């Protein structure tokens, strides 16, 4: 990574001079990025919590805000959601990357993920486990399940959001992510948020 960064500094310099970017075509593989990162919490059949990491999440809206989450293959989390119709989604911030990495590298079918120390409580609106370490957590109820060839897409209504008390004076219309510090994912790699560049509507204010 270090080497790549050095080599590309020059490229970055060159890039600043150009407006339009010369492009090449690459194969349509796993190149969709950047992706937000979430820890998904569900309840196992025996009442224990299960957590895993999902980055295939987008938003949607139908009268109220919804999350749109997709999962391939078969995972304990998927089994739980298909059975219970609910899940929690915790924004992965820099300070809980260690926990996300643990959940992401272990398998829920091998039993409860309790090799590292963390704590949880059950949601206020929905019976889903909420991580105490999380700064931003959604309690969701699935309203629609769409099945694809090999994957499931869950459209879920956001029933409640729990956020860190420290954010209570934050402008929620124009959230400052440099304060929340979410981790950003691109295949296999984690990145941080850099700086706040501006706010929606600035073009109108500043004009050309």
């Amino acid at each position: 990574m270090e080497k790549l960064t050095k080599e590309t500094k020059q490229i970055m310099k060159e890039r600043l001079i150009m407006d339009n970017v010369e492009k090449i075509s690459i194969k349509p593989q796993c190149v969709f990025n950047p992706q937000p990162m979430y820890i998904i919490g569900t309840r196992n059949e025996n009442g224990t919590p299960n957590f895993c990491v999902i980055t295939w999440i987008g938003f949607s809206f139908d009268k109220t805000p919804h999350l749109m989450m997709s999962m391939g293959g078969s995972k304990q989390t998927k089994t739980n959601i298909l059975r219970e119709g609910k899940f929690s989604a915790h924004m992965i911030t820099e300070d809980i990357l260690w926990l996300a990495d643990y959940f992401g590298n272990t398998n829920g079918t091998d039993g409860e993920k309790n090799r590292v120390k963390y704590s949880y409580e059950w949601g206020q609106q929905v019976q889903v486990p909420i991580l105490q370490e999380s700064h931003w957590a959604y309690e969701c109820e699935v309203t629609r399940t769409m099945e694809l060839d090999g994957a499931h897409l869950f459209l879920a209504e956001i029933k409640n959001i729990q956020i860190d008390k420290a954010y209570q004076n934050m402008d929620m219309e124009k959230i400052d992510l440099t304060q929340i510090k979410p981790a950003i994912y691109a295949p296999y790699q984690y990145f941080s948020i850099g700086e706040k560049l501006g706010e929606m509507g600035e073009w109108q204010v500043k004009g050309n």
Partner: protein
Amino acid sequence: MKRKSIGCSHEMPVQPAFIVGTYNEDGTPNFAPITWVSMTCEKDEDYLIVISMWGTKMTKQNTIRNGKLSINMVSKEMLKLMDYFGQTSGAQGMKTDIPYTYSKAECVEAPTLDMSPWVCECEVQSIVNTGESDTFYCRVKNVQIDEKVETDNWGIDLTLLNPVIYSGSYHSIGQYLGEIGDFYKK
């Protein structure tokens, strides 16, 4: 940690930013920012882009009619363009108040923004109506990337593409933090 519940009115903090390009009925290009984008897969390695579009915007009408679209990653340098496209309506005609150039995509009938460092050319596979929004499942026909960015099987260095993250505010990507497993090993 102490938390409080805030109901669910303000709820969408981490959104990757894209500008979707479509052709209008008269052949002119239309561009609009769309941030409700994620992905899914079929079988093993058959990836689909999933887009949710609310309301009746021009991009949605075009996508339903043509079944073709380009998804242009918004880089830091394109912020003004994204904000402009977002503040104007395609129903009022082609968005020409600020200068930009575009080209036809290589594999689908859709316009692409020349400034974008990463463009995904898509064909709509299916549309599912989900109340006030529609969910578009799009087959990826081609991906174009800034030729100066090296790609290998081990992903892409986001700091080179400089994508914008949207939350109502716009943010840049900071630094590389590690890769899968790095924190677990420690």
